């Protein structure tokens, strides 16, 4: 039941109506039941893992508050459990491969078996939310959540369970215990975000995907120009896919009166440096890693070498969070390299009032990011080698695939870029709200008609679901 499918919207309609019809004391139960049903619709077995994680984290946090003398031990247990869960489903086979290769090179007759476990959808997101909660309780920033229902909802809330945003317990617990009235503004902003999210995903991301996936599925066959265009399009595919998901998720949550974290602030069009980009891109993960990895790592130290080491650690964690593979680690390494370079040279801090300088900086930032994302997109060094080798041939024979799809993709992308320039740091719902009624309704109708006319209505899965 993808966010872009008709069954999802039928489900959403039913849940919203029931939510506001039911007496207030039953509403959270309804949300939990709906969330479990939604998660269950992907694969029943996944739900058992989610239920297990909820129970473990509830009782561990409770024990932390009730037995402060055992806090450290309980924290250790919680870290082992949550990271172990991720390790088992996401990283075990990767480590097994590496160790087996090491044993082979040392001529040791040892072999670690591999398991064909399917990665439970959303596990990286809800495990980080669980870890954030446990660490907040450990540090005394919040008390453990006494209400089992609230903690269950915090981890399972259906708008965010698949791909975040990675919410914080202090923010969400309050919302789960507050009464949400049926407010016009929430519905208006919710629909606006859903509409913009659908446009990003169905018109831009899914049309780019048809082109980029065709190129990257067959790298040796393509010319330099085609590969360069694919590499330049991929950041937009990734962003509009994930950004589209996030907007829909935030919009859906708004219909129930909930405010989920802002996750993007037009990162690819408006960032004038990589430092600026990381303030605008996947904000919920970046801030999570900063709060729970970088700050504890730094302690009270402010020394530059330690800051740089902290940045390196932070981005390696982020790279590894995305997937078990050397390519993700290299992507993280490249990002930390950019940030350290910008900090050391002051490039990340300098802001220019000159439009031309800023435009050039935006273009340079985009190119740097697109290069880094090649490691993110390509599955192996072999593919990267093929990509570089073919790009170095300087052949200009351009493959545009289907003229229809290429036209839709270019049209959708142009509209997106135009909107992104106008939005800058604002969210779509805030921006559109500040316009006159004719502009607002014209935009809504224009977007809806564009989705129906050129969007890919096949409900393709979101890229971040596999993380």
């Amino acid at each position: 039941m993808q966010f872009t499918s008709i069954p999802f919207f039928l489900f959403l309609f039913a849940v919203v109506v029931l939510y506001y019809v039911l007496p207030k004391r039953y509403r959270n139960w309804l949300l939990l039941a709906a969330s479990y049903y939604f998660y269950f619709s992907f694969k029943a077995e996944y739900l058992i893992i989610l239920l297990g994680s909820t129970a473990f984290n509830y009782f561990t946090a409770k024990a932390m508050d009730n037995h402060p003398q055992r806090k450290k031990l309980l924290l250790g247990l919680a870290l082992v459990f949550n990271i172990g869960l991720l390790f088992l489903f996401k990283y075990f086979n990767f480590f097994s491969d590496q160790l087996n290769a090491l044993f082979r090179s040392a001529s040791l007759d040892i072999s670690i078996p591999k398991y064909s476990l399917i990665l439970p959808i959303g596990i990286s997101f809800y495990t980080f939310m669980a870890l954030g909660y446990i660490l907040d309780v450990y540090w005394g920033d919040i008390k453990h959540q006494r209400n089992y229902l609230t903690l269950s909802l915090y981890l399972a809330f259906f708008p965010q369970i698949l791909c975040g945003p990675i919410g914080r317990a202090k923010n969400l617990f309050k919302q789960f215990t507050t009464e949400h009235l049926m407010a016009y503004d929430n519905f208006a902003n919710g629909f606006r975000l859903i509409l913009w999210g659908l446009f990003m995903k169905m018109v831009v991301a899914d049309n780019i995907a048809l082109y980029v996936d065709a190129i990257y599925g067959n790298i040796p066959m393509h010319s330099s120009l085609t590969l360069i265009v694919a590499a330049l399009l991929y950041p937009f595919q990734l962003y509009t896919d994930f950004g589209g998901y996030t907007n829909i998720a935030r919009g859906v949550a708004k219909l129930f009166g909930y405010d989920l974290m802002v996750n993007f602030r037009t990162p690819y069009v408006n960032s004038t440096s990589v430092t600026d980009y990381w303030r605008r891109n996947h904000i919920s993960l970046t801030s999570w890693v900063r709060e729970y990895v970088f700050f504890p790592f730094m302690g009270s130290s402010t020394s530059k070498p330690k800051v740089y080491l902290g940045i390196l650690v932070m981005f390696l964690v982020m790279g590894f969070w995305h997937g078990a593979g050397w390519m993700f680690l290299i992507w993280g390494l490249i990002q930390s390299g950019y940030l350290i370079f910008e900090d050391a040279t002051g490039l990340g801090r300098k802001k220019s009032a000159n439009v031309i300088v800023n435009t050039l900086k935006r273009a340079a930032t985009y190119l740097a990011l697109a290069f880094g994302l090649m490691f993110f997109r390509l599955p192996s060094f072999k593919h990267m080698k093929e990509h570089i080798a073919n790009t170095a041939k300087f052949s200009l024979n351009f493959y545009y695939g289907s003229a229809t799809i290429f036209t839709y993709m270019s049209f959708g992308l142009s509209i997106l870029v135009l909107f992104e320039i106008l939005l800058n740091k604002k969210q779509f719902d805030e921006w559109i709200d500040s316009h006159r009624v004719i502009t607002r309704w014209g935009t809504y109708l224009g977007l809806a008609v564009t989705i129906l006319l050129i969007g890919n209505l096949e409900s393709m899965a979101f890229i971040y679901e596999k993380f």
Partner: protein
Amino acid sequence: MKNSKMKLIYKIGLAIALFYAANWIVYGALQQMGAGETNYLKINSIQRTQADVYIFGASRALRHYNPAIISSYLSSSSVYNAGVASSNAAYQYCMLNLLLENHTPEAILYEIGDLGKNLDGAIADFFPYYDKNKEVHEVLRKRDPLAGIKFAIPLYAMNQKIFGITHAYLNSSDSSIEGFIPRRGTLDLAQIPIARQTDKKLQADENFDPLAWNYFVRFANLCRDKNITLIYLYSPRYTMAKPVGFDLIKNFSEDHSIELLDFSEDRKYLDNAELFVDWHHLNEKGADIFSNDVGIAVQKSLHEGKRCLAL
């Protein structure tokens, strides 16, 4: 609180009304633009035709069979090209049912190769007939249980068609000869390696659509019931390759005594870039040469075979 609720209900109502108005306006405009015998929305005009022989199939039918040339071999029987790009066997079955509402042709030349899952995009063309034709309704419901909901939004039927409709509308050179729209240009040889890779995927067994096969069989049964002569054809390709489900079709045609004319191994066409616009579509020149070949072969088949046309 009460005001907020009323405002919300009023705005939702207004949004739905405006959305529907915009839908019907754009839908109507596109219907007008695509109402001719273009590749798109051919369904609009096919019911008005009364030809003796029809050509059915996907884009290779549309681009390869020149009715004027084929007709000259068939004692001036009228021929109409009903090919539609990206259409599959379920589409052809719907099209035949709509055609049979007003007219029963004598023969159908069916370009095989439309059993791939990749050819499912055009079926929404039948939106206007969803509630009007029982067979069309059944096909659409079987393909997609949510068709009823989707077709409540008129523009759903126009999804990803605007480029083709606008192109055909603006480009007068695309005007058809009895439904036939040739393609101009010659093959870019640099695209061949990519094309070979794509071909592999399209011909893989996973691309076989069992639902399309079901309607392929029903199409043949309907022709038999209506006493329509059916001939299967497979037109030339730049590289030698068979479509997905070819063996099934071959066995089926043998079991049911349906002629299968396979031109895909004809040396005249193989590796002849002059006759192709891409690796699986003939250009205008290639289509004319091929239509002559079809005319001769069909004439022979109809005269020699038991299923003779009253020519």
